[in-house]
């Protein structure tokens, strides 16, 4: 009878080939991603205030504790998975997706939803069909729409104030919050104001939201670093930018007074964060080369439609979750041809 494989090892890996391995690890990839988030976070602290750091610490601790606890409950190896950095990446992305002055418990709740609900209920790292950070964001915006729309106002970067908003019980928020660029644009357009006059309001900077466009630039830099280190594929960022940019271009060219420019769309909201850090999540994105393109184009198109016609100002998270659902189908129908079956150029 054929031998049954052991739980984690088919055979002794030291006995069978290959006998050498590239010095890579999940941990290394995850910490590279964390490093790539630093420029965006730096811009955040500079433009919006250091309050986000409180949330980052809070979210990181919650994520690690939740990860360890669930792994223990599930009788899985704890140390190796807790230290792989994946929980920290999820925690940081949740924080970057939420307004940075939400009360502390909302951050904790969002991280728990991400780690326990979206990740471990589906089987832990590698098994979750939905991007944990985006699932948490969507759950929070549905459950706490008011808190989730209180974005810190540009110019009020005082740390003490933000500290009290996050950790204090009372929320005297008048004058401390402001509309984001996407919010202002949506409200303006609903009020039948044209794009040009909306853009003249104080919420807007050079191309996107005032202040926020610097954060987007930070994420773009981080993303380029990930591309340079080959940590991520170029396929998702590029095709997302094309999907969102092209859809926005078509409508903008038809009616520029009613639809903002593609540049505005790409520089606002979470577009850059999503392009380089969310869509490139290996677990929940499509895995085939063509599948990655389809997946990210889809997110871009859905994001534009939700932003333009939906009930929420930002639509990327919904686009991601919807396309996450399609991943098995996309993967199955984009299986690449094997060697000898490819339509490659012949001599």
């Amino acid at each position, binding site marked *: 009878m054929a031998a049954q*494989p052991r739980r984690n090892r088919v055979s002794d*890996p030291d006995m069978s080939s290959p006998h050498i*391995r590239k010095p*890579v690890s999940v941990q*290394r990839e995850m910490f590279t991603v964390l490093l790539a988030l630093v420029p965006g976070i730096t811009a955040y602290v500079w433009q919006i205030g250091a309050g986000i750091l409180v949330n980052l610490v809070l979210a990181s601790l919650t994520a690690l504790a939740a990860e360890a606890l669930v792994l223990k409950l599930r009788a899985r*190896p704890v140390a190796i998975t807790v230290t792989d950095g994946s929980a920290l990446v999820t925690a940081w992305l949740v924080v970057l997706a939420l307004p940075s002055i939400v009360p502390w418990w909302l951050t904790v709740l969002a991280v728990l939803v991400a780690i326990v609900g979206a990740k471990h209920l589906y089987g832990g790292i590698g098994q979750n069909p939905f991007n944990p950070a985006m699932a948490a964001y969507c759950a929070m915006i549905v459950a706490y729409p008011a808190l989730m729309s209180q974005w810190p106002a540009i110019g009020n970067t005082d740390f003490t104030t933000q500290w009290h908003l996050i950790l204090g019980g009372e929320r005297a928020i008048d004058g401390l919050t402001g509309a984001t660029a996407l919010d202002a644009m949506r409200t303006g357009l609903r009020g039948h104001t044209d794009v040009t006059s909306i853009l003249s309001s104080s919420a807007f900077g050079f191309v996107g939201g005032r202040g926020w466009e610097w954060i987007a630039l930070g994420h773009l830099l981080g993303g380029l670093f990930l591309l340079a280190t080959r940590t991520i594929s170029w396929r998702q960022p590029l095709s997302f930018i094309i999907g969102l940019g092209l859809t926005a271009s078509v409508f903008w060219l038809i009616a520029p007074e009613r639809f903002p420019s593609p540049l505005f769309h790409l520089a606002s909201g979470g577009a850059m964060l999503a392009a380089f850090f969310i869509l490139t999540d290996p677990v929940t994105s499509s895995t*085939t080369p063509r599948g990655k393109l389809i997946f990210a184009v889809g997110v871009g198109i859905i994001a534009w439609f939700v932003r333009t016609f939906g009930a929420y100002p930002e639509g990327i998270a919904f686009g991601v979750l919807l396309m996450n659902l399609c991943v098995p189908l996309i993967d199955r129908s984009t299986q690449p041809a*094997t*060697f000898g079956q490819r339509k490659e150029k012949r001599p």
Partner: protein
Amino acid sequence: MSLPHLFRFPGGIQPDAHKKESSEQPIRPVPLPARLAVPLVQSSQGSARTIVTVGDKVLKGQCIGEAEGNAGTAIHAPTSGRVTEIGRYPMAHPSGLDTLAIVIEPDGEERWIAREPLDMASASHEELILRVQASGIVGMGGAAFPSHIKANSKIDTLIINGAECEPWISCDDRLMRERSADIVTGARILRRLTGARRVLIGIEDNKPEAITAMKLVVQAAADDGGEISVITVPTRYPTGGQKQLIRVLTGFEIASNQRSSSFGVQCFNVGTAHAVCRALVHGEAMVSRVVTVTGNVEHPGNYEVLLGTAVADLIELCVAKPGTERTLMGGPLMGFTLPRLDAPITKSSNCIIAASNTLFPPAPPEQPCIRCGSCAQSCPTGLLPFELYWSSRAKNYDGAVHYNISECIECGCCAYVCPAHIPLVDYFRFAKSEIRARNQEKRAADQARARFEARSARLERDKAEKAARLTAKAAETRAALAANKDAATDANDAALIAAAVARTQAQSQAQPPASGQNGGATPPEPSI
């Protein structure tokens, strides 16, 4: 001269080469070992039949095993000496199983049998092919496919594989540097045998000395009616794989179920071309090969090793340093751990690596797959190894077949790049063997069913035939009876009547009717 257009194969990896450790010293001889155990099976396709008995004196290069069948290849005494045993010896195989081997005790004289070079000008194609087979030549790159089969096909492009893409191995490199003339002569013979229009010698660009040496020989020789070119190919594992090198040099992509000859291409290792030259031009059968011994040893290098030399002898010669945990045969990407060191060097053993945990660190613990797709990017066959992994792990073998597991060449690229340190190739080997077993079972079941159905049908047919035969016979008898009825009955009746009449007459003549108790033919005389 314009640069040749090279093609790309998908994936591939670029691990540290580690060639310099062994490639900087000339090929050195090995002192005669105390014993040589030459296995009868030296090729992937066939075996040899022993033609010596224990006690026989043999000369170096003397045939000791004849080619068995068309695909078999002969084996020869690696040195002069005495056959001391024909018995089961360990195989150079990951299983460590035994195989039949002829054991020769060297007499130390290294006396060659009379060498009979072929006159290349007058020898016929068949003679050349027969000599290739009789000299025991098989592919020396690792697959050990019988060369006389490959050389006996008509093709357009002959490829000589000097890529040597696996790290640490440098035996082909040294061979090309030192024996380029013989390699090119062998290539010319193979070109003649195959009728190839051109010969492409592919060498990875990390072997500049070999490239120079080969180019020198090719350029020095007068043009003899065909194009021979040395082509530098980029260093990228597994360029030395036959199908990968064919892709790089010619652009043809040969699927797993296709043969290169149907594309007009045939590929031989440089070592094989060298052996062809030695056999045909010098009359020397294949009795030795160049083996790289490297890794954690004091004297790494390339050695001319007699076939049948135990790996332990080589390790002893090169002196394993402390910390050597295990010994690999072949390269670090496709080679295997030798379960026992008394295994012999065979025609396809290109490299022996003494592995320490420093040079070849044990695999870190396996982590869950994060579907990053690095494996798919590195796969030279264009597979999705992570999908194969999910299927294999779940024992969903239909899924594994759907994702073309049979196309996997086990090159190890996927496991090399995996950030979760999953031993992917091990999963695939396991799934492949399960699928093979399943197919065998299915075939056996199909055969049994076919046999049963055939038997049932036969029994059924026999029964029907028998019934038909009986019916026919009955009808026939009945018809015959009916046809003969009148005549037969009349004759019978007439006879019976005649008999009865005769009897009655006899009785009435012999005695009066009153005394007829014992009416018979000869009634007793009444005693009155």
